């Protein structure tokens, strides 16, 4: 078990060192998410619609689109110079490779979201501080679901010529339950409701997170096999 965890953290370490040197992933995700929010803020008249009604959808669209960029890049890095083959040739369990890549994607996405949230708060003039704890929990659970299924599909689409197109086509229909749940929860939290009154939505996201991770564990072996 210790070696398994070492292998997972080694993959995360490798992805962080690479990102620290290239700064390709974070900068592209952050700029893309920011652009989505800026485009929406200029196209919506906030004197007609309430920010807490449209804001959550826009926030999650920004996270999703930017996250997809990150997921695409994640396994492209492994395909360059045949690194994925080198990784598969190590004695590491395939699920350790999956969890390593998933954790990297999760942490990169959470960091990007941490930078986007204050900007969202300023642009939409909404008070996130009052609901910060529950909001962070919702964002975390939604992002876990997104990364869990996204990492699996990214590994699947990485062998395709049209991977940049195929990943969102495969991913978005599957991520719908988590996105709906996350948008509803974010909206109701901004409207002043407590998380305790919306546990059914929390349960829904949690259930899908577990399903996505479970499916990934079962299928990753076959996906990584040529």
């Amino acid at each position, binding site marked *: 078990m210790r070696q398994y965890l070492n292998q997972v953290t*080694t993959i995360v370490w490798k992805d962080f060192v690479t990102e620290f*040197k290239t700064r390709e992933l974070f900068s592209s995700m952050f700029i893309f998410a920011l652009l989505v929010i800026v485009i929406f803020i200029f196209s919506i008249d906030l004197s007609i619609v309430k920010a807490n009604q449209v804001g959550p959808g826009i926030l999650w669209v920004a996270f999703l689109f930017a996250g997809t960029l990150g997921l695409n890049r994640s396994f492209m890095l492994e395909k360059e110079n045949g690194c994925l083959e080198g990784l598969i040739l190590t004695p590491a369990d395939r699920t350790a490779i999956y969890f390593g890549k998933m954790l990297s994607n999760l942490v990169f996405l959470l960091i990007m979201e941490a930078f986007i949230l204050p900007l969202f708060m300023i642009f939409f003039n909404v008070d996130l501080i009052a609901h910060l704890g529950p909001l962070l929990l919702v964002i975390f659970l939604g992002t876990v679901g997104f990364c869990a299924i996204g990492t699996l599909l990214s590994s699947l689409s990485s062998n395709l010529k049209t991977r940049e197109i195929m990943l969102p086509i495969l991913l978005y229909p599957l991520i719908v339950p988590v996105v709906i749940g996350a948008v509803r929860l974010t909206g109701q939290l901004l409207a002043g409701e407590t998380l305790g009154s919306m546990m059914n939505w929390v349960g829904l996201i949690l259930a899908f997170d577990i399903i996505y991770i479970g499916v990934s564990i079962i299928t990753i072996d076959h996906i990584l096999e040529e």
Partner: protein
Amino acid sequence: MPDPSKLDPSSPAIQVQNIRKTFGVVNALNGISFDLNTGEFLTLFGPNGAGKTTLIKILAGLTKPTSGTATVAGYDVQNGDSGLRRDIGVISHTSCLYADLTALENLTFYAKMYGLDNAKERAMQAIEDVGLKGRMHDRIRTFSRGMQQRISIARAVIHNPSILFLDEPFTGLDPHGSNVLKQYLHSLHTEKRTIIMTTHDISCGLEMSDRVAVQVKGKFAFMGKSNELDKNNFEDRYFEIINDGK
């Protein structure tokens, strides 16, 4: 599952029985069978598309055969056993190195993935062994093809495998790079490692190996001991074998 360390050293390190592999309607391997003893060096010759890389990939457990069996270091290659991956080192067409990491970071990464103690020290030693100590802190992106190949070999042997699969390791190397690689492979062979190498360089393959085989259209059209072959005329014979095989 047999423990390879307890295997009889005189028993074959690699046993292949009637391996076949099809990709759709294409028969990449058409029933290959052979044994390779511990410490033996086999070179596979053959034209492009003969199925050499497919055979290496099957033996390395990277892809499964359509039918037939293969045992490497006592492990059935179809079981995906991590023990097999501990016992083999593979050099393929690609370097399997992360371009934006340094040579030391790359090898430390692989050493950790193999669960080796003192990963960084092992990585430094491996880089020193291939003569690139002075470049260990440089990114792989800045390395020439020959230097990348040397680091790739260091990656493949960092866990001290008993069996090596080398798929066209001389591709893209200049004469000096080829010479350095030859000497290094020779030193690995003298350490009693079992090696299978594919190459188009006939004289090099004959010089380095104990046995040679010519693979044509997914099967062995010829197999023989290197020291029993007429090295001066083998190239002509090779072309005859290929033409007969077609």
